[in-house]
């Protein structure tokens, strides 16, 4: 019988890059039509199949405001995967990825991670190219994927990518 995994992942990144939206899109299929900052921590889950394995993915949505750092620290515990996220229309959000990596490293010893570049549908406002995103991903030593939560592009693939990455680390 194929194994069943319960995986805990966390999403981190600058404010308004789409962390809550990608989780809602993935877990419920709908798109949240308004922006609200997450204060504290959100939670969602979804069952998925990765090859022969059954995976129960539990996703913790960590609020990104600077004053929440102490609150966030509690919730990293036990996470096996991290989704770093930025917004392709914002240089600041890409630059902040390094700070987020440092925060995660302070709280987690061993984890798998991917870098997600969101809002690719905003083509005319885009300032960060795919190459620049990939460059940061390789600096961090993680895989890179571009998504549009609004257009439901590559969302499932992103979560599948992080799940595969965690499962492969078990072997």
């Amino acid at each position: 019988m194929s194994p069943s995994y319960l995986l805990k992942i966390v999403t981190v990144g600058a404010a308004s890059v789409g962390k809550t939206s990608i989780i809602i899109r993935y877990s419920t299929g709908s798109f949240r039509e308004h922006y609200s900052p997450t204060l504290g921590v959100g939670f969602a889950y979804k069952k998925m199949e990765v090859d022969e394995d059954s995976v129960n993915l539990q996703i913790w949505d960590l609020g990104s405001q600077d004053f929440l750092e102490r609150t966030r620290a509690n919730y990293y515990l036990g996470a096996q995967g991290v989704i770093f996220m930025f917004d392709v229309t914002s240089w600041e959000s890409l630059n902040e990825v390094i700070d987020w990596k440092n925060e995660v490293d302070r709280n987690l010893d061993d984890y798998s991670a991917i870098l997600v570049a969101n809002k690719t549908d905003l083509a005319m406002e885009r300032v960060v190219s795919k190459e620049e995103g990939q460059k940061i991903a390789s600096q961090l030593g993680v895989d890179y994927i571009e998504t549009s939560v609004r257009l439901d592009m590559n969302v499932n693939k992103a979560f599948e990518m992080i799940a595969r990455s965690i499962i492969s680390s078990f072997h």
Partner: protein
Amino acid sequence: MSHAIEALLITDKGGSPRFYMQLDPKALNMDPVMASSFFAAIDMFSKEVFDEKAPVVQVDYGARLFTLINGVNTNMIAVSVQRLSQESIDVLDSLLAEFELDWLEVVDPFEFSYETSFVDVYLEAFGERVMEKLSLRLLGDSWVPYFTTKPDVLESVFSILMDYINGTRNVKEIIEVSGLSRREVVLDLSKLWAHRVIRFRNMFNFNDFMTTGTQFVRYAQATSAETKDLRDLHPDMAGVIPHLAGLIDGRRTVREILAELGTRYDERELLRALDYLIEVGVIEALTPEKRRILLVKEALELAIRVAEGTYNVTETTNALQFIMKNTKAPEALSQLQLKDGKWAVDFDFKILEGLNQKRLMLLFGEWMKILAQFVSVLNPAKMSIYIGNLTTVYSQRIIRRYSAFDLRGFEEFSYWLEILSTPSKPHVGPIETSHLQIAWSSALEELAYILVTRGHIIYKSESITQIKSASGSPLIDLLPTEWVGRDRVETFERIMVEYSTLGPAAKLTLLILATQRGILIPKEIII
């Protein structure tokens, strides 16, 4: 049929507008030419990014949702504030097919010179077809239709309301006087609207929050050209407007403004003055984004006042000043003002003039952050009392005054209060979610899902287990549809009552989540 569509735009594949029509007379005007180029770019982009083109694409843009329907030779874009129903999308699909088949060749913008406005190539006959299938959105009983051209020269359109529209009768009165059914009146007004021979006055909702623009002061100056003109044209109105001026402050609704002046002036006179000021563009009803900003600013103002009562002015002032050091957004910082030794929020909306939707949404986030930080630096020893007092005030001043739409996202503040007031360490381990349904079949199920998932994180997992026992609901182990033999509504009510006892802020969370979803809360929780 009822629908959420504010406006329709049809463009050809090259990005030129072919047809534009507003279905909601209150909706903001969109420039069809600019909008067409914008959507042509999206269309091209989607083709490049996706191997296959989806027939219907929905694009969220601030508080508006654009639904793009791909035709053979044209694209249709419907602008709405809510997600469109499948029924609406089917109607739009058939209208687009009809346009391509019967009307596309009739209207060719290239036959017109560049000096010709797009408005001049508007196709009334197709507009009438649109209105036959969709009709005007949200036609209010109090709206007063009036002709924009002399009725006796109307040759292109026949109306059964010709004798009843006189510029003073509202929709309700027209129905009463004409003896026609509401449906007949709505259809005929929709047709006249499609032919662009009528407009409406008195369109604002009594729950609209009204605010002034920078040019409004001209109507409060005795010697301005605007006041002089008004005195000549409408002398009564010129006398009323200065009395309205102090009440159109960005935080009062039309209903509240009328209540203030109702004993001194006739309501119709006040409404006419408001109509006039809207028409000349010096006052406006707050947009959905600005209503959300207003809500969180009011929440902060109340949080400050309640803190002064629960703690004292000095502690409250220190807390706010500490937070202001970390606030960078000038639009927010400049609206925190020291008055008579107390900090207060300035509700003037002129500071937001000209800002785009994205900036407005970020400012909403900034105000939420200020609010959350403010309560987090108050003395935790009195936090439970403070939250209790705040819940009572919010129940009256926020939850009852604002719409469910305005409350979107405000629950995050309540979750934050729950976290602040819960002494136990947060739950960070795996959560039992074996059968809890994510695709809810009812608002109650969605509410239960949110309470259980978010509740697990805020409170100890055992607290949620206790709710399960107390409510007699399997909650997590079985789908609600499988609760055989249980009164489901009663069980959900029990869940709400039990949840409300978990912590001092749990009741506020319930009030917000239930109001957002139109759920009646049990009597025990009502404040």
